[in-house]
């Protein structure tokens, strides 16, 4: 059972692991099943991140337990569906968390760019 998302601070769950962040981002554009998530993450990272199913479903278990995602009841037409498949959807709280994490990462990147190091690398 997903926990109530109201009244919880997304900051409590930060930082996310990179893999968890990728999965949440993959769900940001709509409901996806596991295989679709794996493909999406692979495509976004140019093939550098290949999630194994063991890793993926460990993350999904956490997302469900923490109320960041729920199982979606909307399924494709019977002809295209594999009934064993599960579809997942980001909850509003999940959206808050992934936004918060994105903001946190941005801040970090910004801080890094402001240093001499970055200017040296660029030059």
């Amino acid at each position, binding site marked *: 059972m997903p926990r109530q998302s109201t009244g919880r601070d997304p900051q409590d769950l930060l930082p996310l692991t990179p893999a968890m962040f990728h999965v949440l981002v993959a769900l940001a554009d709509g409901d996806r099943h596991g295989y679709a998530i*794996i493909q999406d993450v692979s495509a976004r990272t140019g093939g550098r991140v290949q999630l194994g199913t063991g890793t993926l479903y460990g993350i*999904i278990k956490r997302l469900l337990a923490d109320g960041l995602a729920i199982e979606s009841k909307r399924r494709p037409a019977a002809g295209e569906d594999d009934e064993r*498949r599960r579809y997942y959807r980001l909850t509003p709280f999940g959206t808050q968390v992934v936004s918060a994490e994105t903001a946190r990462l941005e801040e970090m990147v910004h801080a890094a760019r402001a240093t001499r190091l970055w200017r040296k690398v660029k030059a």
Partner: protein
Amino acid sequence: MTRRPSIGARLYRAVLRLLPTDFHGDFGGAMAADVEAAGPRSAAFWWREIRSILAAVVREHADALRQDVRYGLRMMRRTPGFTAMAVLMLALGTGVNVAMFSIVDAVLLRSPFPRADELAAVRFSVKDRATSLVPVDRYHDLAAAPGPLTSVAAFGNGLHVLTGQGDPQNVDDIECFDPAMFDVLRTPPKLGRTFGPADDHPGAAPVIVLSYPFWRQLGGSDAILGSAITLNQTPVTVIGVMPSGFAGPLARGDVQGWLPRGRPVKSAENAGCRQTAALNLVARVRPGLSLASANAAMPPGFSLIPLASPIMDDVRTPFTVLMGAVACVLLIACLNVGGLQMERSLARRREIALRVALGASRSRLVRQTLTENLLLAFAGATAGLVATRLTLAAIVALLPGNVPYLDQIAVNGRVLALAIGAAAAAGLVAGLLPLAESRSVTPARDLSDASRASERRAGWARRALVVAEVALSIVVLIGAALMIQTFLTLRPSRPGFDPDNKLIMSVRLRGATPDGSEQFFAQLFERLRATPGIRGAEGSTYFPMGGNTAIASITIDGTPRDLLTNYTTPGFFHLLKIPLVAGRMFSAADARGSEPVLIVNEQLASRIRPDGRVIGHRVTVQSQGSNTVPIERTIVGVLANTRSSSVNTRPRDEAHIPYAQFPVISQWVVADALPGRHAEAMAGMRAAVRALRPDLVVADPRPMVNYLGERIATTRFGAWVLGALAALAVGVAAIGLAATIGWWVRQRTREIGVRIALGASRAGVTALVLRQGLTLAVVGIGVGCACAVGVTRYLTGWIYGVTPLDPGTFAGCAVLMLLVAAASVYVPVRQATSVDPVVALKAE
């Protein structure tokens, strides 16, 4: 169209099953669907996937375990009374096991020698009779052509040697080693060196290697190397100290040191090794060769047997019995905790049903229950380990001093492994019992009512547990009772002779002639009898249970037979109050020139003639020794049997010869002291020896009672430990009985309330409850006695004065158990008789 799945896919599915049931149920199907979605895959893909699943398997199981542990701890905190009781019982159960195993591990299981499986004792056969003694020339043959052996070395006992450090002190536990013995046993010294060939010849300077305990006794300083200790007035240089735990090939716990065997005693005053015609040999078999195949390859006449200490044989039975008893105690504790858990799981039935209804898998419930019980068991084992660590020294102090490797007894890694194993076993036993019960939980029924049927079933199961507990504890109780009776019989107060007020002192006149010996001892006894505080003094080469024996051979009907012989002064039997059954005692008239006579014990008399009427009978006695001739002797008396040995308690064939007719150089001097004047008498004994021979160093006189007490130390240890274990077993079983009957009363509060309301008397209710408890006890006692019949025979050879199936012991233990059972039902009886009918009926 269905395609046959690839090997990778099949392997993947197999690995998926390793995931925890809950996780597999939630995601297994989706995972399989995901990997099959894109058609055929490369081997690299499957490899990555399978690795990913295996990582998930570890992670998810660890996660589940973490949750189970948290849940278990919460449950334990919720019922602190139960938790404390369970932990205490399991602590006692594992504690006694850990303590006993520590001892068994050090004494029986662990060998101090590297590759001990290659070591063997060499035996030699003469006329088809294998003995442990090998003639010296055959030993040299074997050493020259060792066949399947890599090495062989001889050892023997050193001559009675004495040290003059401060007060003269007896050092008679010296062994003589070939230099090669240390190599055969593969044990280097802790300090200094062992012998080389240069130390091992008649002209060599005398050297000694000390045992660790003796070195500690002499101060335990490294500076001792190179310094001299005085043995038989001969300065002997200490060249090495062996490590702790090394006690020679026979593992004699009290061995003090080693001398090179090749350096002989030169005169009575010298320290060295007696040069005997035959030797004890220890050999190392070539690696990889079994003892059987090595035996087959041995030169003719030689054979090999596993190297084992005779002391080990003495303690093997006791330790095996005690290990059995401690295992029983642990099992009783487990059954008890299991029974209590059963009650709790019944109380939690609704909770479990609710969780099943909410989708918890049964395997998850099983894991949770087992985890909870394992937590209890490990908490108990930890407490038990700590308690053992604190009490082990006291337990070891009860052990006889000659048990080898006492200083090696410790809570070590193997003991820890046993504790963990015992805890795991305890947790499983205690946890599976309530599980058998909760398997029948069905939400539909158990959520609607607290099912009576399941309570009844659990009631039966729980009663069966209590019956088993009572049965096990009565087995331990009977064993303990037999052992305690043995101890009481063997105790020096009732050994078949009277050791009270007797002081003993061993005197040995090295190098004396028979005439000289006879004269010396005659003068000594005369002085002693005139010493204040001493009523009488006699001498003998042997006394019952004394351990020092001489063997002679007697010819009965043409067949020679070995028997214990004793050379005694005339008043010896009178002094020890050993009753004469027929004939006469020795007298001063039985002197060297008079007719050779003999007194036998009843045992030997009945061997000579079945009717035992042997007075006047003539037998030929050949005393042991190199230059003795067979002498025909007339039997003049028959003595009552006494115990001859302290551990093996059957009377043996014994023959007694007047000392005057066979004067040997050593005797036990036995003085009968006046009560309360022992110290004075002992000082008098020392003074008498000093007055006659100032140069003679003898061991301090000591009370015979103390000496005999040491001789039965194994029995005393067994009686103490088994007694304590029996008390523990009965106590735990009584708690189990009280708890079970208490539960029965709680279940029937309503029924009892109705009975009281209808006019049942307090006595009637008491009888009702008592009957419940005693029925279980009686059944348990019956089962237990039946088991004991099969078990007590393992005590044969260790018990004395009572048979393994002694009806009195069985009956006594049964009555005792019944009384304990009746007492333990007291609390539930109080509970039942105080039921208020109004409250009881309202509650339902």
